[in-house]
Each structure stands twice: as C-alpha cells, then as structure tokens.
C-alpha cells in the first residue's frame, strides 16, 4: 500500500517539485530580464524620439508627404513619436524573446526559432510599405503638378490613380514577402488591376466614345488648322 502511494502520489509530487525547483529560478531570471527590458525599452524610446527630433524627422516626413498619408490612415501621432514607439516595442519584444529562452521550454524554443526566422520578413515588408507610401505620394504629387501645368482637367483623378496603384503594388509586394495568401493576393491584384484597365478602356471606348471622338478631333484638328493661334509670348 505504501509502495502504491509512493508510486501514485509521492513520486510524481517529488518530480513536480524537482522540476518546479529547476524551473522557478529560470522563471525569476526571465521576469527580471523582461523587467529590465521594459525599462531599457522606455529609455530607448526617449533617446530615439530625441534623436529624430534633432534630425527634424517630422519636417522631412511633411516634405515627402508621409505625414499626410499617415493622417489619412488615422495615425494622428507624429512620425517622431511613432518611431520612438516602434523602437520601444522592438526592444521589449527582443527582451521578451530572451526571457522566453531562459525558461528552457522545448516547445517554446521551437516556436521562437520559427518566429525569429520570420521576423526579417516582417521588417522587409514594413520597409516596402513605407517606401511604397513615400514613393506613391511623391509620384502622385509630381503627376498632379505636371497634369495641371499641361492643362489637363482631371489632374486630381490622375494623381489619385498613380498614388493608389503604387501603394497597392507596395501592399501586394509586402504580402508576398510575408507569405500571406501568396497566390490569392497576387491573383486579386492582377484581377483588380486588369479589371480597372479593362473598365477604363470600355468606359472610354463605349460610354465616352463621343467625348473621345470630340477630344481627338479637337486635338488634332486644332493642331492642323489653328497653328499660330497659340501664345507667342516668350517667357524668358
């Protein structure tokens, strides 16, 4: 009976206590490391915000039109604050991962390994998105100014179209990088983009055929018959 009790209760309890005795220092160490990480993350956040304030990141983002895009995405915080926040979480996550490693749990170790291998993809995707937004804004603005200077009446539409296509392209590239529904996202993009072009072609060719005809007639006939009616002002 005593043997039975020893086998059923005492031995597992002893094993559990042994494991707990082995695990507790790791847990305490992990908690300490994570706490230090949180303090360090706050310090990193303050230093980063001050550094980017010194480098005038906010005005740089204003110039590149990034702030405008961020506001449209309901990101009301300034880029300096957002970057500070990003570094806070990056530091916190790094220390969290270290803390988890200290627990020496095989299942978590495997999971972390996968996570660490995947992390660069997240960073690259984030960079692709930011570059896409900046580039989309810049080219959108350049298109707007060039179209207005050429006297095109639908300059605003052209600007939005250029911006949307570039941002959409960046989004698809980011998804591709993250490996999220690779085939689906790419196919959706191809269908949407192809559909847009097809719809525009149909709209212009069928719905707007009279406008198109008039426009082309006016454009080419004007060039043929009304040469010399343009300005003769020499600006320089």
């Amino acid at each position, binding site marked *: 009976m005593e043997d039975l009790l020893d086998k059923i209760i005492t031995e597992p309890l002893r094993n559990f206590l042994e494991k707990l005795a082995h695990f507790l220092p790791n847990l305490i160490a992990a908690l300490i490391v994570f706490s230090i990480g949180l303090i360090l993350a706050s310090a990193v956040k303050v230093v980063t915000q001050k550094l980017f304030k010194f480098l005038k990141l906010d*005005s740089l983002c204003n110039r590149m*039109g990034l702030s405008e895009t961020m506001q449209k995405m309901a990101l009301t915080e300034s880029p300096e604050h957002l970057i500070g926040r990003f570094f806070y979480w990056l530091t916190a996550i790094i220390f969290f991962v270290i803390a988890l490693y200290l627990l020496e749990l095989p299942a978590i170790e495997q999971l972390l390994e996968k996570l660490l291998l995947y992390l660069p993809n997240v960073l690259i995707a984030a960079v692709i998105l930011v570059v896409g937004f900046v580039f989309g804004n*810049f080219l959108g603005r350049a298109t707007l*100014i*060039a179209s*207005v200077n050429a*006297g095109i009446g639908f300059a*605003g539409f052209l600007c939005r179209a250029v911006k949307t296509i570039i941002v959409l392209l960046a989004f698809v590239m980011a998804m591709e990088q993250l490996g999220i529904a690779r085939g689906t996202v790419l196919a959706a993009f191809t269908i949407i983009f192809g559909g847009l072009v097809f719809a525009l072609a149909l709209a212009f060719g069928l719905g707007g055929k009279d406008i198109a005809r008039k426009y082309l007639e006016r454009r080419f006939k004007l060039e043929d018959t009304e040469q010399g009616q*343009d300005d003769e*002002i020499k600006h320089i």
Partner: protein
Amino acid sequence: MDRSEIKEKIAALGEVDILVGIPSYNSAKTIVHVVKAVEAGLSKYFPHCKSLLVNSDGGSSDGTMEAVRDTTVDLESILVNRKADQFRKFVTPYHGIPGKGSAFRTIFEIAHALNVKACVVVDSDLRSITPEWIELLVKPVLEDHYDYVSPYYMRHKYDGTITNSIVYPLTRALYGKQIRQPIGGDFGFSGELASFYLTKDVWETDVARFGIDIWMTTTAVANGFKICQAFLGAKIHDAKDPGSDLSAMLHQVVSSVFNLMEEYAGVWHDITQSEPVKTFGFVYSVGLEPIHVNLENMIEKFRIGVRDLDVLYQAFLPDELLGTLHRLAEAPKEAFTFPDRNWVWLIFHFALACHRRVMSTEHIIKSLTPLYLGKVASFVIETWNSSAEEVERRLEELCLTFEREKPALIKIWTQEG
C-alpha cells in the same frame, strides 16, 4: 574632342584680348547672322585687339558648328580694314549637363586659360544683333574698367514675362541694383570675373541650364563687382529651346533665384532700397511687331491650378492669399486682375517655402506655373492698349511694391532662421 585636346588647342591660340562666346544647340538657321555681327563688331571697333570667337555647342545635329566654321564676313562692304590674324574662331562641344550654363562654363574656362581682358557672351538665336552690340558690351570693360555689363534692350511688352513679373522686380528689391534685364543672356564681363565664376561649384545645379543668366548677374552684384548696363536697341530672338516646357524653364530660373537668396541672405538683408546703374548707349524707342496672346488658355490654366493644386498651396500659402486666388479663379475675364501686393507676397511665400523646405523644391516651384500664367494674363488684360512707356511705368509700380514689402519678408525669413 576631349578636354586634353581642347586644352592643347587653346594653348596654341596664344594671347587673346577679347573673347566672344556663343552657346548653341541646333541654331544653324540663326547663328550665321550672330557670327557675322560679332566678327564685324570686333573688326570695326577693336581692330588692334586680338580677338577670339568661341562657339560652345551642345551636340547640334543641324550643322551649327559647320555653319560657324564656314561663315565669313565681307569686311570691305562694311568699310572695315583689319590686320591679318587679329580674329580667330574656335568651335568646340561642351561637356557636362546639357544646357546654356554648361556651354558658358566652357567659355569661362577658355577665357581663364587665355587670360583675356574682356569677355562677351551672346545668344545664338538673336535676329537683331548688330556689330554695335559688341562695342557696347566690351568698351565699358576695356576702357571704363567695369566688371559686368548687363544688356538693356527694347523688347515687346509681352516678351520676357518671367523677367518682368518675377526676376527683375525681385532681384532689384533684394540686391538694390536696377538692372533691367538681369537674365537678358547677352553680357560683357572682365576676364577677372570669368575666373571668379569658375571658382564657384554650381555646375551640377540649374545654373548649368537656364539659371546661368541670373546666377552671373547676382554673383557679380552680390560680390561687389563694378556693374553697368549697355543699351543695345531691340531684342528680337527665337523662342528659347522649344523642347523645354514653360514649367521647366520657370523652375530653372526661379530655383536659381531662390538658391541665390539662400547663399546671399547676408547681403540682401542689409539692403534697404534700390539705385539705378550707369547705362551706356543711346536710348531710343523701337517699333516691335504685335504678337498673339491666348488669354483664355492662360486664365483656364490658372483656374485649373487653383482648383487642383490647392491641396499643395495649403502647405505654405496663408489662408488670406488662398482666398484671393480662389476669388480670382471665379472672376470673369473682364474682372481678372491680380493685385500687385498679392503677387509680391505669393512670390515671397514660394521663396519662404523653399527656404523652409516644406516639400521638394521642384514641386514647389513647378506649382507656381499656373499662378504665374494668371499674373501674365492679368498684366496682358491691364496693358493691352498701353504703350511701351506706359508698360514700363506699370512695371516700376510692381518693383516698388516688391521693395516696400521686402522688410516684412526679411523679418519672417530671419525669424525662421
């Protein structure tokens, strides 16, 4: 021809007193007349000076360089005798960014290498140049020791509208010299000033293109060189570089003016009023052919600009000025008047936006194009029946408005550091 070959050929030219540079690009049709006028001018007015004509070409494919080489003048027919070997021609392609400024750089380099006493540059598209232009541009340098001779011409009232509405009034207000054609394109200057230009590192900027003229004038004024003007009569020329559009030209010129404002802020902040500069030559009125102006097109472009670029203007124009622009965009053609004070502050705010770098400088300045067309349209409506003298008086009013408002600009500029 590479640089070492050019250097060898220049060294072989020996001593030269006067150098006349002609930048060109596909100007075979007009450059022959310019070369003849230059050769006749040098032979007639400076027969004892060793002179050199330099054609700095941007890779013309229409035989411009050959046309320069083959052009000769029958000096007997214009009653001129010249000593043998006093006049030579040197035709060379230039290197660097394609543009007038790069062509000038080559001319300055040759002038510097030959240690010339006086230098002249004239455009290759001039139809009204006469031998007297060379006399008027060279003599103040050789005889009166001026460093820079700016041209002063009679032009059609709607010719040179960037000069009249922006460059002349703004540079006059900033640097205090009443140089009427600061981007005229035909200048005389000393060899010393040519060498000074070469010390500046600007050849990869818009100075290498159409910005060169205002850069030369401003650099001479801001660095205290002795300046004068020469009255050259009528200026009749082809449109500049038909391939380049208005917004590109406007950007090249205006960005050079704004860059110079940054560089010489210490100079223009201390200048409170403008003064006339010595003018050589016999000033007379010239009849000029009327030109066609498409007012509706300009006003329409202004309206499109105000409507579609409003989102950009909001970043650097005050609400009051934006309100004026919107009211003007809604006004009928008969009531389309762009008030001078609003125009002056519009230019100041564009300069301040570039100073603060609120966005890409190219985007800021190119977005000025429709507003500039609005100002030109307003000016044309206002002066349609005015004589040349009346138009000059009207421009004087604009210049005085720029000068009156300048202290407020300095205040804002200084506050923003």
